[in-house]
Each structure stands twice: as structure tokens, then as C-alpha cells.
């Protein structure tokens, strides 16, 4: 499955639009990691455990979007956008959406 955040794919032609596909996941942080993050708020620096967590969740959201596109019979998702929102203390939602299309070589 081709995933791209551009409207056109170089060297390929869009033959059919299948509509919007999306994937999202809500993740909460681990309490132990939260304590570490509290300490980091004093010293500063990167919170690598959060970076990892968000990356994993984003992959999961992407996977869900791809699954939806697969069910529609698409072979590519174009114009993909990410969005992140923190919905409650300690939980954030990762959302990814795009348009499912069928592309073929030009």
C-alpha cells in the first residue's frame, strides 16, 4: 500500500477515488513514566519514553487507516495528514486521515 502526503504521485495516475479513510487511537501514559516525566520537567531534555509511545500509537493509527483502505479495495492513500490532541490529563489522541485511491503506472 502506497502512503503519501502529496496530492499526486510522481509517475502514477489516479484512476479512481474511493473516499476518505481514517484511523485513530487514544493512548494514556504509564504512571511510572509520568513520574519520570515530572522529574524531567525540572532538568529539561528529551522524554524518549513519550517519543516512543507516540510513535507506536501513530503507527497503530496508520495501520487502522490502511486496513480501512484495504477494505475499500484501494491500493494507495494520498494526502495523508496527522493530528494530535491531548484530550485529558495524561491521554492524547492520534488521528490520521487521507483519501483512498487506486493508482496505476503511467
Amino acid at each position, binding site marked *: 500500500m502506497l502512503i503519501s502526503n502529496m496530492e499526486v504521485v510522481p509517475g502514477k495516475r489516479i484512476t479512481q477515488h474511493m473516499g476518505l479513510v481514517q484511523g485513530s487511537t487514544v493512548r494514556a501514559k504509564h504512571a511510572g513514566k509520568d513520574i519520570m516525566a515530572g522529574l524531567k520537567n525540572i532538568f529539561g531534555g528529551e522524554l524518549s519514553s513519550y517519543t516512543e509511545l507516540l*510513535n507506536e500509537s*501513530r503507527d497503530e493509527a496508520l495501520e487502522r487507516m490502511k486496513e480501512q483502505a484495504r477494505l475499500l479495495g484501494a491500493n494507495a492513500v494520498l494526502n495523508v495528514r496527522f493530528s494530535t490532541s491531548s484530550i485529558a490529563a495524561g491521554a492524547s489522541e492520534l488521528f490520521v486521515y487521507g483519501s483512498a485511491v487506486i493508482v496505476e503506472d503511467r
Partner: protein
Amino acid sequence: MEQLIIFLVLLALGYFFGRRSEAKHYRSISERELQLQNLLVLPTRIPPREFRSHSSQLVSGSVVISVDYFKTVVAGLRAIVGGRVGAYESLLDRGRREAILRMQQQADSLGADAVLNMKVETSRIGDNASKGLGSIEVLAYGTAMIPTEPPLNSSGAST
């Protein structure tokens, strides 16, 4: 009295460790930026003609950076008088450059020669919502252009 001592200790810890980690981070950023300067990053929506025979793939890089105590206090004081908050400016600058670098590194490991339609998104990881900034997440993503036929210019020369 006790509270004041705790406050001053935290302030000092934030100042020394925060400054040290920021300087270290900036050094590593400029080092890697130099290494990856040949990998084009363009925020254009339409791919230029020379990428016609490239295959595309989504790449992304993200980083979560925390403020230190000193920055929180300085920004809090700055909010009283208003104006430029230099403490947060450098934090966001570091976050963006780091996220873009990670995206470039992923593109580089795929053998790409450019990243098109780059977008940057910043969000706040707020758990201590009332007390300043907490930490920020920066995500950079784009479409990596991977050459499908490596000897592109040599074949162009032969025809």
C-alpha cells in the same frame, strides 16, 4: 523558608542541567544537519519534474521535549511584563529541528534523495496544564522520493 530553599534548589538544578542539555542538543543538531544537508527537504505540494520516476513513501520524525524548571519560572515572570519569551523559543526551535532531522534520517535510510511536501505539527503534551508548558511534541512528516533506477543520469547520458 523551607519552601524558598526548595524553590531555589529546583531553580539552580533547572538552570545548570537545562543549559547543559540545551547546549549539548544544539551541538548534536548542527552536527547532524551538516551531515544531512544533501538530502533535500521541500515544502512544495507538487513534485518537480525530475522526480517523475521515483517511488514515494511517507516518512516522519517526532520528538517530545520537556521544559526545565528554570525556563518555566522565567517564562512565568515574562508573562507578567509581556514580550518575547526567549526561553520557550529555543525549546521549540530545538524540537522542530530535531523532528526534521529524524525525518531526514528515516528518509536517508530508505535511500531517498528528497523529502517533499514537508509538514510540521506541534502539540502540547499537557498533564500539568495549569503550570506552564510541560512538554511539547513536534512531528515532522513528508513524502520521501526514492530513486527507482539508480543510474538515472548515466542512462540519460547514453541515450
